[in-house]
């Protein structure tokens, strides 16, 4: 039997036992997200479509799946959704700037050997595709952090309906600080695990520090990790502010 099929089967089994209906939905969400990535990649092959705009659309769809499909449409997912989109756009502008400056697009000389049989002249703008890769690596973590902040904030607002906007904002920030460390950790270990082969390779080649730091592969992976870290950190104050703004305003209206 195929490894991936068996692993997916075990995951589905565990998610159903432990998560019930919600577990099945969480499992299906992974498949939908995979579908979104595949469609995005296929559309990227068309050079007339701007990959950055495509990425923004993909991020909106992915956040909808992660927030509304898994957790339902309600006030906490709505504010988390809005914060995710705002954070993604801010991060996107920064990534476009840094990718152009540091020239980390495409493939490094270490990777080019295995791609030798392919033509690299493919008329698609790889600078923009690299921007898309960096933002897509982070989108899962950004939506997770956004919902992890907005959901306890709703509980606080529910239990203390007379809380002021500032108090709600401050308690949201304090929740955010508690999860900041573990969110950053999750991403860092995921990337370390993914790049382990590469790290061993750099050590094997005994590159000097100067060569490692300036090489395209290493600097692009490091910039991806750091941008991911910036993304999960930045989404905390954004979500806190938006959630505090909407929840307390809602009360004044009613």
């Amino acid at each position, binding site marked *: 039997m195929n490894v*991936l099929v068996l*692993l997916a089967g075990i*995951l589905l089994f*565990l*998610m159903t036992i*432990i*998560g*019930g209906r*919600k*577990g099945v939905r*969480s499992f299906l969400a*992974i498949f939908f997200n*995979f579908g979104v*990535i595949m469609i995005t990649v296929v559309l*990227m*092959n068309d050079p007339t479509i701007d990959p950055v705009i495509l990425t923004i659309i993909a991020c909106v769809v*992915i956040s909808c799946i*992660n927030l509304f499909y898994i957790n339902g449409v309600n006030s906490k997912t709505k504010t988390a959704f809005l914060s995710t989109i705002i954070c993604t756009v801010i991060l996107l502008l920064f990534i476009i700037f840094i990718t152009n400056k*540091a*020239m980390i*697009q495409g*493939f490094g000389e*270490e990777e*080019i050997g295995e*791609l030798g049989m*392919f*033509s*690299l002249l*493919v*008329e698609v703008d*790889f600078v923009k595709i690299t921007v898309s890769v960096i933002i*897509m690596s982070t989108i*899962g973590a950004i*939506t*997770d952090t956004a919902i*992890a902040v907005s*959901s306890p904030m709703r509980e606080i607002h529910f239990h203390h309906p007379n809380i002021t906007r500032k108090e709600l904002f401050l308690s949201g920030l304090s929740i*955010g*600080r508690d999860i*900041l*460390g*573990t969110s*950053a*950790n999750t991403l*860092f*270990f*995921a990337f*370390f*695990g*993914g790049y*382990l082969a590469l*790290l*061993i390779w750099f050590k094997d080649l005994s590159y000097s520090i*100067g060569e490692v*730091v*300036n090489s395209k592969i290493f600097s692009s992976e490091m910039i991806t990790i*750091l941008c991911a870290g*910036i993304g999960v*950190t930045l989404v905390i*104050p954004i979500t806190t502010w938006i959630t505090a703004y909407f929840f307390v305003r809602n009360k004044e209206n009613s």
Partner: protein
Amino acid sequence: MYFLRSIFKKVSFKQKIFFTVLLCCFIGSVIFVFNNYSFYERPLAKVVKTTIEDVSKVNSVNGIEDKLYTQHIIAELRNGENKGKEIHLINEYSQSKAYDHEFQIGNELFIKIDEQMEKDTELTGTILEVKRDKYLLLVGWLFIFILLIVGKRQGLFSFISLAFNAVILSFALDIYIQTSNQSLLWICGISVIIFTVVSLLLANGLNDKTYAAIIATLLGTFISLLITYLVLLITGEKGLRYEEMQFITRPYRLVFMAGLFLGSLGAVMDVAITMSSSIFGLYEKNNDITVKALITSGMEIGKDIMGTMTNILFFAYVSGSIPTLVLYFKNAAPFGYTLSLTLSLELARALAGGIGIVLTIPIGLYTTLFFVNRKRARQ
């Protein structure tokens, strides 16, 4: 009142010192990285003038039309014996820039100076690499500052834990490189224990919550690794394509397993600490809460986090393959072949990580219950 004020002053004074030191580090490192030309052995040059000499249309496979540009660059050498002299470079780049770069005035490049045939002719050379260290440093500092502004004390601790883990990882890999090939899983196992203890202690301090989370993380990681190992054994690794890892001259199966082990660790830790701190939180609010009620609430919390947690890993792994996928599709590679070749390892990592996350929910729940019951018995 006076006492409070003195504490306030003391803390703010410490903070003042901390921020002054931080600012000095920031300014010092930025000045260094913008002026470190003499520290590099390879010649460095700064582009002062570029002219496009030639543009040609290229038809590659499947009627794709790309443009090739030839760029003549005049750059000023920044180090070595020819410092200050001008050098002429030729750069070719394509519209898609998958492997090449378009250079602009102000870019800094590592180059190789050609040997001169005659004296007093123009210097020529070839471009080796772009100088990227300054951008890396600037993004790194931006991350540190945002982390400190948003996270304050916790931000500082999470930065310390990340930096410490990076150093441990680098050290562990050094040990692996110098010793026999078989020991990678052992080295990884020991480092995983160190990573878990250090990260969780720095995030939550010395208390029962942290102990429960550490035990749950280690159990969750090792059990999920065991399951993945058994799956690989039963299926004979059918469907996994290791081609993309073959550039390393090490046993790549072992490296893949070690990466899988390490990659899910962060997520498993996240689940474990969420479970233990929320269950302890419920217990501390109401000391008489029944075990059954704790299990019900714990499972509810677990259901809430498992979907988004598995998605974090999924996106972190799969997104990295997008450029390769685009290149394969553009070269008219068959769909199924492309997917299995570029995504099989990433998907296996994401699925195995997902199994770790889901398993840690009940493991974390029952480990925490054990600690809660012990605490209850003591009182």
